[in-house]
């Protein structure tokens, strides 16, 4: 299970909560910090050169001019600048990156075959990851060198002496490079889709001689009739499928290597096997909210942490009252045609002793009314650290012996007035643990379109392209090409480690901040030992706290590219929720506004011929 990002509702994500500031507050704070820092730095630099009075006037003038300039942006001039940037990128061979992608794609067929255990995962991971990095790298190179080269070659003189606003120069280039990136993304996407379908497409044959006919004899009449067929397909691309057909000669082959095939018996006794089915999926998840109970059955903030590697998961202890409780929004619409609730369990297992590896760790789950003390009987299951689909019957046995209500209906009896139902999961084996997170257990709502899921994944990639190009261009307004490229790479690299830095800024790492860590290093004290009491400790902690404050600001100034990465949804066959796309759009929009403004002021205050 690759998806480890919790998915918040728009309200939870945007508005302040108990444990987070919310996107809106962070955005407003970022704008305020940028404005104050920009004005202050501008004033200091200008003061050194021209004195405080002139500096005050200069900063004020630039700030005041920026608004009418923003309002008088001309689409025609932005269009001209965009066209120029587009032409420049194309004629300076930016499409080489696409050619490189195509060459690698063509030859990758030698090494990536559908013979692997998880061919879909392999193909999608390769295609999406490779092209994402290639594209982002190209976008960095595209965006960081152009403006410095223009300044160095003085071609920008002929632009600056025309009636072009700084906004227009910046936006024109930005749109041009985003346009090139978008064009390549679309081209790569189309090629990837074709590669994927062609690479994974295969079929099998069935030898009619090897198929067993299933018959049934009527006890009364003694008549024998055919009730189906059983057999196995030929061994192609590293696997074969056992199958069983109904009396009409139709059926699905057993699921192997993440897919199945439709098998049909023809009138002449031969069999037809379709192409792979249910291979490229986009299952729509209906997620709930999770809370934990500790070993005494008391509510706790999070599950047990068994180490950094499994930090995302809260663990519940086996053989105790410890439980993970999911609260779902429940309705009839979630049940399938057979009145079953399709669910998927992806529980992690943490063992303190080896036990029986093959059989997994035993546990149980039951449904409970959120407000009343009524619940269904526990259903045992075994967690094997792999996704398991469970079809839960709508009618569940009552855990209490109540002759008037021996069964409980999931919707009618166990769902409260707010439409909520609770699912309790417990681990039965003492000394063993289940790792549970929001994404671990969910209701399978429906099967979405893989194509649209694929498109949504590419929209996320496009968001990354926009971010990378915008960052690169902003860096290039005040740095020379190679330094801007380095800065962009660091920003990109940082984006993929942002979660760790955020944890550090929130004081979630052991050992304190830089000063405390240095003292620990010097005194050879390990991170779990408290420092001695004393005034100096307070001073050290105060300095570290300010460092963390600064780091928190920094954390919110650079993007967390993990938040813009949805390829794990596609690889794992899950639909990308709309709310995730909207949140990504807002993140990119917020960064875009801040960065474009920053780029404008850098250009505006830069002495272009200096």
């Amino acid at each position, binding site marked *: 299970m690759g998806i480890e990002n919790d998915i918040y509702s728009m309200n939870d994500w945007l508005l302040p909560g108990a444990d987070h500031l919310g996107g809106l507050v962070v955005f407003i704070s970022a704008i305020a910090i940028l404005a104050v820092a920009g004005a202050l730095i501008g004033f200091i*630099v200008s003061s*050194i*050169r*021209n004195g405080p009075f002139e500096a005050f006037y200069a900063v004020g003038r630039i700030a005041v001019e920026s608004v009418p*300039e923003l309002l008088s942006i*001309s689409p*025609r*001039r932005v*269009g*001209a600048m965009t*066209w*120029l940037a587009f*032409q*420049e990128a194309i*004629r*300076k061979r930016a499409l080489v990156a696409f050619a490189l992608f195509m060459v690698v794609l063509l030859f990758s067929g030698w090494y990536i075959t559908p013979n692997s255990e998880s061919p879909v995962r392999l193909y999608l991971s390769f295609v999406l990851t490779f092209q994402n990095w290639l594209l982002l790298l190209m976008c960095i190179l595209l965006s960081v060198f152009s403006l410095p080269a223009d300044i160095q*070659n*003085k*071609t*920008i*003189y*002929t*632009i*600056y*002496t*025309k*009636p*072009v*606003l700084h906004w227009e120069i910046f936006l024109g280039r930005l749109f041009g490079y985003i346009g090139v990136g978008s064009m390549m993304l679309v081209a790569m996407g189309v090629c990837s889709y074709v590669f994927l379908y062609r690479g994974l497409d295969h079929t099998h044959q069935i030898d009619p001689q090897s198929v067993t006919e299933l018959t049934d004899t009527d006890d009364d009449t003694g008549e024998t009739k055919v009730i189906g067929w059983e057999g196995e397909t030929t061994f192609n691309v590293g696997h074969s499928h056992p199958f069983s057909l109904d009396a009409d000669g139709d059926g699905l082959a057993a699921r192997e290597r993440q897919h199945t095939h439709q098998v049909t018996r023809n009138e002449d006794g031969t069999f037809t096997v379709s192409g792979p089915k249910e291979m490229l999926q986009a299952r729509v998840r209906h997620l709930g909210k999770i809370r934990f109970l500790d070993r005494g059955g008391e509510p706790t903030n999070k599950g047990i942490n068994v180490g950094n590697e499994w930090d995302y998961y809260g663990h519940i202890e086996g053989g105790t009252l410890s439980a993970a409780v999911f609260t779902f929004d429940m309705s009839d619409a979630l049940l399938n045609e057979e009145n079953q609730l399709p669910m998927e369990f992806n529980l992690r297992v943490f063992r303190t002793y080896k036990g029986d590896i093959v059989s997994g760790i035993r546990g149980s789950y039951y449904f409970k009314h959120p407000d009343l003390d009524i619940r269904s009987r526990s259903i045992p299951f075994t967690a094997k650290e792999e996704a398991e689909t469970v079809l839960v019957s709508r009618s569940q046995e009552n855990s209490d012996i109540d002759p008037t209500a021996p069964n409980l209906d999931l919707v009618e009896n166990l769902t409260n007035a707010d439409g909520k139902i609770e699912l309790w999961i417990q681990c039965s084996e003492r000394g063993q643990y289940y790792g549970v997170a929001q994404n671990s257990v969910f209701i399978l709502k429906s099967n979405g379109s893989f194509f649209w899921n694929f498109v949504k994944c590419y929209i996320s990639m496009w968001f990354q392209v926009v971010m990378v190009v915008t960052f690169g261009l902003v860096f290039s307004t005040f740095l020379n090409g190679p330094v801007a490229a380095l800065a962009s790479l660091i920003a990109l690299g940082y984006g993929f480690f942002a979660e760790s830095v955020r944890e550090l800024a929130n004081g979630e790492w052991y050992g304190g901040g830089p000063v405390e860590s240095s003292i620990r290093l010097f005194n050879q004290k390990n991170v779990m030992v408290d420092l001695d009491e004393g005034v100096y400790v307070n001073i050290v902690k105060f300095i570290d706290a300010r460092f963390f404050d600064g780091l928190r600001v920094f954390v919110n100034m650079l993007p967390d590219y993990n938040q813009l990465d949805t390829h794990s949804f596609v690889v794992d066959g899950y639909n990308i929720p709309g709310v995730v796309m909207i949140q990504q759009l807002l993140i990119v929009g917020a960064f875009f506004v801040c960065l474009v403004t920053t780029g404008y002021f850098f250009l505006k205050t830069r*002495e*272009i*011929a*200096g």
Partner: protein
Amino acid sequence: MATTETMDSAAETPSASNEIVIETRNLTKVYRDFWGRQKVRALKALDLEVRRGEIFGLLGPNGSGKSTTMKLLLGLLFPTSGQALVFGEDPSKVSIKERIGYLPEESYLYRFLSARETLEFYGRLFDMPASVRRERIDKLIEMVGLKWAERRQLKEYSKGMTRRIGLAQALINDPELIFLDEPTTGLDPLGIREMKDLILRLRDEGKTVLVTSHQLADLQDVADRIAILHQGELKEMGRVDALLKVRDETQIRARGLSDAAKEEIRQVIQRHEAELIDIENPTTTLEELFLSIVRDSEARPGRRARVDRDDSAD
């Protein structure tokens, strides 16, 4: 050195009016390093006025400050102190740039574009209808003689061809004020002549031209007034013909003299009844004047050049 005359008045420039198009007041530019320390004082308290309809030449050796002056007037540099005004406003204002054209020293153009694409691109930066733009592009390409190569990328152009397309882009908006930085650089003699003719034609159309050049003869031929800069200071400014006039010598030009008459010409030219064409103060060349000012400036740095001339006489 012969005495020359300064006449700092545009009133006598044929097509110039009294409207001031460019004005600098105590304009100073100091280049600083990253730490804000002074590196070079490129321009020192320059006071200058250029009037509508005149061709004004900025003359000076390398590092004299003429390019800095032009960049300050174009808003490419910010003044350290003083003020530069174009059409009475700060040159960084976008509205000013609707009315100016600029031919840079080198052809700072996008070499991946063709000539037509270049003009199309720069034309789109101005507020003009597409039909007018296309018409102007056709006209300018015709004017600079690059019709035959209009579809070729500029990277395939010779230096002279690039200068021509550079000039075309400077004129794409039919500007009132044209900045020409070393316009004859890279041109062959025929191209130089055409460039001079064009500058004069622009003046005749009522446009104001500010031109810098290392080719002293170029300015001598076309400029109404010139300013000579050295080491960032204004050393001389005035009408070209006045600056070059040598007042303490008399030049006699005659035609049809016999060999015998030539022998006696110094004493009795009139007595031999030759046709007297002209008697006037001879002029030196701008090159001589320029070198004289530079020599004087180096001998007495920080002071206005002292050439032997009689300012009062006119």
